[in-house]
């Protein structure tokens, strides 16, 4: 009995709150789903803030229908990863370039002060996205939100409402491997976030299920590949028939390969890549 109590106490002491910020439905799953599932499995309370409503990327569905379906699917994917709560901010997908960066920042800031996370996972704003720049805008806003959450002069009304300042100790920047130079270390190991590869061998299956739960976007991805191939007189045998099975298989190939790409030059088989800044990065090594 005593041992169990001690164990519970230990878990309670170690359990952290983790805030995941994502621009769109697939990005946090594909780039960080394995690490998120591992944190949740270790007892961390993980909360997701989803900035856009994903209303654009579908096949033959209206924006309204798309947004409504994807919301349900993201919530299912989040649950599969062990995420406790999902907050959707509802900005229209692909239009963050027309929204004030400060406004997005302060929406995220609210959740940082409310939840007081020990760690944040945010899109890497510097990951050289060519198409989906919502990830860049969201990453910029989240990076700023993390910083100003600690500064009392930002959003004083939040303090009036009981939301006090907060320092987030750990920050993970995630991105799918678009940037060819993402493995290059930043210049100063002390103060700048550094590359970090995380083993996802034990949570890969959950990550895959979460990715497969995003059915609307997955179907759209498969149909877009199919259309491009049809238009250019080519075919992919897997997509000769686009149905639930072939789409699930396509997603599996994608998620597995992303895991292998991230695991390159590491001791792991399947991994995710981050840029990471933890408590150690706040103080130069020789002064620690």
């Amino acid at each position: 009995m005593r041992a169990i109590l001690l164990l519970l106490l230990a878990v309670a002491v170690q359990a952290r709150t983790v805030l995941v910020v994502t621009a769109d439905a697939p990005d946090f799953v594909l780039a960080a789903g394995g690490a998120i599932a591992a944190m949740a499995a270790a007892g961390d309370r993980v909360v997701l803030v989803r900035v856009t409503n994903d209303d654009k990327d579908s096949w033959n569905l209206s924006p309204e229908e798309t947004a409504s379906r994807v919301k349900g699917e993201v919530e299912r994917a989040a649950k599969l990863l062990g995420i406790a709560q999902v907050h959707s901010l509802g900005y229209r997908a692909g239009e963050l370039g027309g929204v004030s960066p400060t406004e997005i920042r302060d929406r995220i800031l609210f959740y940082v002060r409310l939840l007081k996370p020990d760690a944040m996972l945010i899109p890497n704003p510097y990951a050289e996205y060519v198409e989906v720049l919502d990830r860049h805008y969201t990453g910029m806003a989240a990076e700023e939100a993390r910083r100003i959450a600690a500064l009392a002069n930002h959003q004083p009304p939040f303090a009036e409402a009981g939301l006090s300042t907060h320092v987030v100790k750990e920050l993970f920047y995630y991105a799918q491997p678009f940037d060819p130079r993402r493995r290059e270390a930043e210049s100063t190991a002390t103060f700048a976030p550094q590359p970090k590869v995380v083993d996802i061998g034990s949570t890969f299956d959950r990550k895959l299920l979460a990715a497969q739960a995003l059915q609307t976007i997955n179907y759209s991805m498969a149909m877009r590949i199919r259309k491009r191939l049809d238009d250019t007189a080519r075919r992919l045998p897997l997509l000769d028939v686009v149905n639930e099975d072939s789409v699930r298989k396509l997603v599996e190939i994608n998620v597995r390969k992303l895991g292998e790409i991230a695991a390159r030059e590491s001791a792991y088989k399947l991994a995710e890549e981050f840029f990471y800044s933890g408590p150690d990065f706040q103080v130069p090594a020789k002064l620690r």
Partner: protein
Amino acid sequence: MKAALLLCTTLTFAQQLPLATIPPGKTMMVIQPHHDDHTTDYGMGGLIARFTGAGYQSWFIRSSNDEKDGAHGYPHNDMYNLRESEAATKILGMKGVYSLNWRNDYMDAIPLLELRAQIILLIRKHRPDAVLGHDPWGHYDRNPDHRKVARAMAEAVWMAGLANVHPEHLELGLQPHRVPHLFLKARVDYGRGHRPNVAVELNEDQVRRKQKAYVAHRNVYASPGMARSIRAQLQAEGLAVPEFAGKTDDEAAVLIEEWYMDWISRKRGSENGVKYAEVYWQRREFDYLPGLTDYLNANVVNR
């Protein structure tokens, strides 16, 4: 020493870029801010000449009004630059110029989504197989218009393919169209923000057209004053360039600019194991799916 030499050689070879091929297709679009952006030293006159030579129909979207560029004052610069841009476009074998007419060097402040909507409409109308533009991640460019248009172009090539983006365009009979191939340029000598992944080999004819297209922008390049000052400096040092003999300052200026374009094309060529080249960051049709590109390359077959 031998080891060091070997290392140097290896490094030199390691830096050579693979040679790009022109992707199969019919239509190409150059989307840039300024009248001369399709013909500068760091691209893309040679590549455009290769596309048009391969039978591509191509259009130049020039987003700004170029009022600041040149010595004729605001309204006159607009006109000179547009005319010269049209002339350069013809030399390269392009079909024409769309002028969006945003205020030159003030594009940072314009609504991104409005500019993007214009580009999406033109992409849906012409359905380009390839788009050429600035790299949205190029560092140290210093030009607000380059950044703005690069970003709008990058979003547009993807979003033009989504039916839920500007569904009103479908009322015109236009269909969604995702642009499969991109060739992005940046001032490659300016830092690490842009890393070209392909070299485009050019032949003599393509380099000559590139030279002529560049020099067509007489409002901003090849000024007789530049040639005059170079000649004066040479004379003061007791030197002369034989090719200038009997030439006016105007003609000498054209010659200097043509040499410059020849030199930069040879330089990029020698860096990449060919006589003439330009370098780009090429984005291929499935690069937006980094986890699927290998699988698609290995398993897609012709019908």
